[in-house]
């Protein structure tokens, strides 16, 4: 493995205007401030929440918010890779729903044959992760080998995944059998050292994601492809393989999120994961990753995801604004934060 990259090597490889600009000393400070934009937004929002309702700052509420952020947050970490490499995945919500449904059906089916509920849950989890990776691989193949726009591929699978879930569920809900459900529920409701399990998984995923993106050759290739695919190709980067892998990474992240999601309600229905794709993409972009690809930060994505769930949490904790306007408030906050971290164009 080559040594830790400097900005200089990245920019030679990428040769993008954005990357070379970032190296000039003048804009460095401005860049730092912009990096802090989402964090600043989050802090301001938290202060507002605390003023509006002091219960906002209680440990229980903070843990609630972080736990429910975990699904979108984990997916958003994978989405960061896809978007930095210049792609997009619109199907993640439907994919999560289908994986959840398929996983429940599998666990119910083998639950009658296998004695140990722990083994059933383990098999279910492995199945969910594999299925996620497989869906991601299918996306990657269609996009790189099939040369179809990622927007179209994943728009197609968005419909396909959800339709199959609805079909399996007969339009209703797929519900996990009780015996398995009891063994499985600590995965969402349990805690380790005072922190709920989903928060641990979220942190771990973000940490690994950040390391891979910034400290490995693979991560640098992802950024290079997003900056300028042609140049990356000339630099002998295996563009297709790297891109394909970003979708597999995202698929596995969706699998992880689903593994945490299923024990919460023990069911999957046609409304499961609805609009998660937009929330995940918004987390990534609010967190400072460019939608056109090339640059981005996992830490920003994590903050973006937390920010989005804090908004709706505050709205639920207060009644100063008409419930009819909730979506408007969310929209305004998202735009303000995006303004705070707007990149130099």
């Amino acid at each position: 493995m080559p040594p830790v990259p400097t900005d200089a090597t990245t920019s030679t490889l990428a040769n993008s205007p954005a990357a070379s600009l970032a190296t000039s000393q003048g804009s460095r400070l401005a860049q730092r401030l912009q990096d802090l934009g989402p964090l600043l937004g989050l802090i301001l929002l938290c202060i507002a929440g605390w003023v509006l309702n002091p219960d906002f700052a209680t440990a229980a509420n903070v843990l609630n918010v972080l736990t429910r952020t975990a699904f979108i947050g984990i997916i958003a970490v994978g989405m960061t890779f896809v978007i930095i490499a210049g792609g997009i995945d619109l199907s993640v919500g439907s994919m999560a729903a289908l994986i959840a449904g398929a996983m429940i059906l599998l666990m119910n089916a083998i639950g009658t044959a296998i004695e140990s509920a722990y083994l059933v849950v383990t098999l279910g989890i492995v199945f969910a992760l594999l299925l996620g990776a497989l869906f991601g691989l299918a996306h990657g193949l269609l996009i790189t080998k099939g040369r179809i726009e990622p927007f179209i591929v994943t728009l197609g699978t968005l419909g396909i995944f959800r339709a199959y879930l609805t079909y399996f569920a007969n339009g209703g809900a797929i519900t996990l059998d009780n015996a398995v459900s009891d063994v499985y529920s600590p995965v969402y409701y349990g805690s380790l050292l005072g922190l709920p399990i989903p928060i641990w998984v979220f942190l771990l995923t973000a940490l690994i994601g950040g390391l891979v993106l910034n400290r490995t050759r693979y991560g640098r290739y992802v950024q290079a492809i997003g900056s300028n695919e042609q140049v990356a190709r000339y630099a002998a980067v295996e563009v297709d393989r790297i891109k394909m892998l970003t979708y597999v990474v995202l698929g596995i992240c969706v699998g992880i999120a689903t593994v945490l999601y299923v024990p919460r309600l023990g069911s999957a229905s046609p409304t499961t994961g609805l609009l998660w794709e937009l929330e995940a993409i918004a987390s990534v972009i609010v967190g400072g990753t460019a939608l056109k690809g090339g640059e981005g930060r996992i830490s920003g994505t994590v903050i973006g995801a937390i920010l989005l769930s804090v908004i709706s949490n505050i709205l639920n904790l207060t009644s100063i604004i008409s419930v009819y306007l909730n979506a408007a408030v969310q929209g305004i906050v998202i735009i303000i934060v995006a303004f705070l971290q707007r990149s130099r164009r």
Partner: protein
Amino acid sequence: MKSIIRKLTLTAAALTTFAAVGMAPATAAEKVVLGVAIPAATHGFTGGIVFWANQAKKDLEKANPDLKVIVKTAANAAEQANQLQDLMAVSKINALVVFPFESAALTKPVAEVHNKGVYVTVVDRGLTDTSAQDAYVSGDNTAFGKIPAEYLAKAMGGKGNLVALRGIATTLDNERWEAFTGVMKNHPDIKILDAKYANWNRDDAFKVMQDYLTRFKQIDAVWAADDDMAVGVLKAIDQSKRTDIKIVFGGAGAKGMIKTLMDGKDPRIVANVSYSPKFMYDSIKLTAEARLKGEKLPATYIIPSELITRENASKFYFPDSPF
């Protein structure tokens, strides 16, 4: 599972209206082509609508060789409007049962079908111009709000703290909410702490309830207003380990909740209110049978919402339905 043909238990009112007709010998041998346009299965309730529509097709086509039923499901209002045109032009329907995706947007397309001489029965969501319909069959949204309010007021002894969840901002949700608050006005000691939208969605209801629990230290009862939302509410309460909530009142009679009620598995689930998607089956059956005899339906037919308690729950339990 779908192949099991269930004995239909028509509501009492429907029986008195149509039993005599049903027994009379068929005179009009004209073939009835009945189009059914309904929303796609995107929620437990619409899943039930689709299930019951297909069930009606199966039962009725078997019983009446002169009848053809065509079921179309649409994901949005525009698609439904297109389907209505196709049903007219391609399938040459002479009767239509439509569950409009949206009242206002579908009024004109339905009127067009009606103007061409097709007999139109509108289900659940009324058109803005009622002259475009021959008959209107609907669930009772006022009772859907009123019955839980009356039950909760009584169970709470006329006082205490209550939180409510709302569905999606629609006229249907407003009707239910107005009926609910209308009753609660007579019980000034019951405080409605807040009512937020949770989109008839389990996950959203979970989040909203978690936040209610953070915000309010004493909650006596929850009007979840939908059985899907009640699932999320119960999980959120379980997680918080709070014991102050005595009653969670759902609605619509989803099979899981009815089962819980029947078995007495959860002390917080003590009653429900019916709003069964089975009215889709009844509407198709009533329309088809009336048209086969050349009869008309009453202009408006409200299928009553009933209070479901442990005693009568088995009457509302349909284990084969997806809802």
